Structures are given as C-alpha cells and as structure tokens.
C-alpha cells in the first residue's frame, strides 16, 4: 500500500533469529548492554535535534 518504510520486518526478524541462534552464551549480556546504550543514544540524539529545531525557530 502506501507504507514504504517498513518493508523490513520480515528481514529483520529472520536476521534476529539467525543472530540469536548463532550467538554464544557469553555474548548475551553484552548484547543487552549495547542495545540499552543504543536506545539511550537515540533518545539523547532526538532530544538534541528537537532542542536545536526549537532554538532555530526563535
């Protein structure tokens, strides 16, 4: 339909299943830590972008 940007979920699901299956047990904790750090990074990035957008309007 009109949805263009989300034609990824089947591929990313397949990638996830492959990665989790192949992942050694020792890598589990670090994967969660990296994901949390990435999510936090995205939030900070979004905050900076919004603040900059608001600042540039005034």
């Amino acid at each position, binding site marked *: 339909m009109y949805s263009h940007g989300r034609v990824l979920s089947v591929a990313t699901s397949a990638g996830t299943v492959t990665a989790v299956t192949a*992942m050694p047990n020792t890598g589990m904790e670090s994967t969660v830590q990296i994901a949390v750090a990435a999510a936090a990074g995205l939030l900070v990035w979004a905050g900076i972008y919004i603040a900059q957008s608001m600042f540039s309007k005034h």
Partner: protein
Amino acid sequence: MPIHTRERRKLALIIPAHNEQMVVGDTIRSAIRAGQSPDDIYVVSDGSTDWTVELAYLVLPDGHVLDQPQMGKAMAMANGILNFGLVQRYEWIHIADADGVFADGYFDELRRRLSPKFVAATGHLQSLKGGWIAKYRVFEYTMGLEVMRRIQSLLGTIPVIPGATCILRTDIVEHLDFLHPSLTEDMDLTLQIHRRKLGKIAYIPQAKALTQDPKDFADYHRQILRWYRGGWQMIRRHGIGRRAGRIDAYMGFMVLEEIVLLMQVTLLPIYCIAIGNYVPMATMFLVDLAAVLGITLWAAWLNRRPDIIAAFPLYYVLRFVNLYTFFRAWFEIVVLRKFGSDAPGWTTEGRRYRIAPEALGVANK
C-alpha cells in the same frame, strides 16, 4: 491495442484542483519548465471558492480550465478528460496533484519512454525539502521506490500509481470507473487496471516528480489515516486476497510486514519478560537499528540530502505512528465497516503552503 492516429498528440497533463491558489500557479509553471507545452496542460477546478481558476488562466490558454461544482477528485478527472476531449486528442494522459513539482526534463523523459507495451506508468517521486516529516519521507521514498518499486515493476505488482505522477494510456480510460467514491482514488484506479487485466504498469525512474509533504505532525497523521483507510477500503472493494493473483500475493506480503512488525513490538517483549531473557528483544532492536540507519545513510547519499540524517531518531516515532494508524484503519474499515461511501470532499483543503524557492532547488538536481 492502442489506437494510433496521426492527429493525436503524445501527452496531456490534467490537474484536478480544489482551492489550490497557494500552489496551482507554481505547479503549472513547473510543468512548463519541465518540458510540457501550456497547450497540453488542463486544470479542472472542483468547486474552488478561491483564486484557483484565475491563477490557472494567468498561465494557460483560453478553454484549458474547467470550473465545475464540487464533485470530488475522481469526478474532476473524469469530467476533465471528457470535457477537453483528451481521449480523442492524445495518446497518454498524465494526472497530477496541484502541489506537484517536476524535475527538469520530466515530460521529455516521459514522451521518450512511454510505449504501447504498457497501459499505465508512474515516474519517480521525491520529497520537497522541509521539516522532520519531509526528511522521513525521503527515507520512505528511497526504500519504497528505489528498492520496492523496482521489484514491484519486475513482478508486475505495482499496487498504487501515486496521484502526483499517474500516466494512463487513453484507450484504457473507458474501462476505468471514476464514479465510485474512494478515499484513495489513485489506488482504486491502479487496482482496477490489475483486476480488469488491462495491461502492464511501467515504472519510469528517469522522470522525477516532487511532492509537498505535511508540514506538521497533525497533518501527517490525517494524511496517513486517509491513505490507510483508503488502502483497506480498496482491499475490500477489489477483493484483494480472495484470488490467486500476483497483486493479491504482493499486497498480502505488505500486510504480513505490518503484522510481523506489530509482533516485534508487542509479543516479543512479552515473551522476553516471561522467560526472563532479554537477548532476543535486544538483538531485534539492534538488527532493526542497523537496517534503518543503513537505509537512512544510503538515502542521504543517493538524494544528496545529508540533512535527513539529523532527524534519524524521530523516524522511529513515525514508524510506530504508522503502525498504529495502519491497524486502526483496519479496525475501522474491516471490522466496523465504516467509510462505505464518501462525500466528494478534498482532504488537501487547508493543508497547502507556498513551496519555498530553496525547496524547489532540489527539483533540478
């Protein structure tokens, strides 16, 4: 088979418009700059109460603007085609939205590449420069057109010819029903071509058109809600999924993508909490992040738009808004059976804004 007569000209441009004084003049001038003669441009004003008709007449010859009572976009197209005698006088008709901008050489490319081998065509669509929503649209159009539209074209499964760049061979017009009200008349026409087996739809990426995206979040939400409601309306109307056709399989895949994404953000976290292991969820997030970031960087490079990278985290917000809206529209149309018939309104009313000169600059890159 197409009818060929020596008298017929190659390509007419018809622009249905309702209260488009903000943009219609720029759109016509853009078409002329892109290679279309004013003699081959026509405007249908559908019940406009502003200066749309007068502004169109400033640029176009006498007799090239039809001013009709408000009947809706599809009827404006049908009446314009009939009133201007386009089927008899032209081989192809290009329908365009009133807020379109065409890249240099757009119509020359079309005239060169339109072939009797297909019955309809669509050019390449790009987003005009704008705020964070326009930036997200660069990401969406790159994925949806540079990748998916080429695949759809190869498979013969283009599900929608966008209203901004919709080209029909005139001999199929009589087989199309413009009278049935629809929230998304462009998808309705496209699915009629598939269902009636009228012929192939071509994708012509060399012909680039640009479109104006919503200027704020509320406007964006209204637009995608109309698109998704219209999409589900068309799935029901054309019985998509009830036949073993290519278009059924492809649109089934598109719905599957949404269902899988919904499961990723709902069932997967529940599953991870239940088993006390967050690795699958973390891995899913990182794989998705890598894919979306990779496409964003590629889109920035391809479109020479590095500015779109800055808004990357906000794309996640819009992706989830889209997901919610998709299933909301499904519930309204498929479960509640709402919007069975529609008044001939225009959802573009009040949405337009002047196209900034710096935004137009991208049209000629």
